[in-house]
């Protein structure tokens, strides 16, 4: 019986280990789906492929690595901050109707409310260490709807210790 339990445990570990490397998705209340290419065993500088489909193109969003916060709270702090300059790869602004200063900085959605980006992540968000606290890839409505929490989505990440 012990051997059977050990075998099943090994199978379980193999299964969870494999699934941890698989893409992970979550769907929001508006029907939008967020997918992250890898959610565990993440190293500094890893470029995560993040994609979305069926997002509301009338609503701009930020995509970034942030500290996990209780549901309904503004996700903050986030790695690299809100990247209005578009100068880093640590966060991304997706919008098809940005304010005039955002034209050329924000990446527009594609048909079907789609986007596909790559974000380089680090376990450090300022002084916070995502190897010790819970962090996640977050999507939230951009600063033009800064208080709107209905577009928040998150997929937790696990960094290598």
């Amino acid at each position: 019986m012990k051997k059977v339990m050990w075998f099943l445990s090994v199978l379980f570990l193999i299964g969870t280990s494999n699934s941890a490397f698989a893409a992970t998705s979550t769907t929001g209340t508006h029907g939008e789906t967020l997918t992250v290419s890898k959610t565990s065993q993440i190293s500094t500088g890893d470029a995560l492929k993040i994609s979305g489909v069926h997002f509301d193109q009338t609503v701009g969003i930020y995509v970034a690595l942030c500290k996990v916060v209780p549901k309904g709270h503004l996700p903050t702090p986030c790695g690299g901050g809100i990247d209005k300059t578009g100068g880093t790869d640590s966060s991304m602004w997706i919008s098809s109707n940005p304010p005039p200063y955002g034209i050329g900085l924000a990446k527009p959605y594609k048909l079907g409310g789609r986007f596909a980006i790559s974000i380089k992540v680090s376990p450090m968000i300022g002084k916070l260490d995502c190897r010790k606290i819970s962090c996640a890839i977050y999507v939230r409505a951009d600063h033009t709807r800064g208080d709107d929490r209905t577009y928040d989505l998150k997929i937790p990440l696990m960094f290598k210790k």
Partner: protein
Amino acid sequence: MIKSKFLIAFVGLAIATVSNAPIAQAAPTVQVQGGPYTGLDPAGADIHFGFGNFPTAHGLYILEAVKSADGTRPTIYNQATQVWVSTDSQAPAHPTGDVVLHVVGTFTGADCAKDTCGIFVRLDHTAPTDLSEDQFIPITFKAGVAGPALPADVISVKVNGASVPANVPGTLTYGSSAKFEVTTSSGGAVTFKAYGPACGLNGNVVTALTGTGQCDIGVTSAGGSTFAGATSHYPFILAQAKQTLTFSVKAVKVGKTISLPLKTNLGETISYTLMAKNTCTYSKTGSVVKGLRVGNCSLVATAAGMAGNYRELLVKISLPIKK
């Protein structure tokens, strides 16, 4: 305070389309209270409005106009300052807010020192032919003060190569674009503004970001030495796009294979279901159909829709299998 310069959409639509209809004889239901209506500065004055019995199903347009001689809806009105009052989230003025209309003593086609100017109230674009709330409230200006001397700039617009009048809604399907080409009498440059989030604006190209609702593009000329600045509005009714599947293969030979498209025109992944296995096979990998024997190969193609933008795809495909 909601300023009248934030005009959105559709003002003038019904004026253009039903301009010969007489103003309703029955008393309007909506009560318009405002002022001042007399002794106004012809160089520019603000009139504030409040409403009683505001319509529940429609909004109102409030505009400065010249009373028509035959009792029909006015055809001469101040295009630069009009207000759309509605509970619609995209309306610039809410019926319970401070609704302000800016009026002037002279505007294109009108001199209020000679013409009977006033405030014209009517139902908005959701009820363009309904005259039941039409009403005209006369206004007067102070004498002896010079009004604006320059005529408003004339803005001419082509959208995707075709001339379009201001204030008359066009249609834009989800994901499609409209390219604006603008000329003005002043010869000056223009600026564009998309009112509301439903349309994206990149330079002079407008793209529908949703398949429902409406958006309004404002085109503003700063004017010049001979023309005063002006703004014209080009509203769009947004419509859902049609999701389609396109492939050109008309038949498959026995023993041969073809690949079916993997995506629809809107980028959705297509799933195929083989309806009968006696004439062909279908392999999900590469979406490949192979002819087995002469007859018809029937498949059903489906793809997800997106609420408000396009419906799901459901297409039956019949591929002849030939020798």
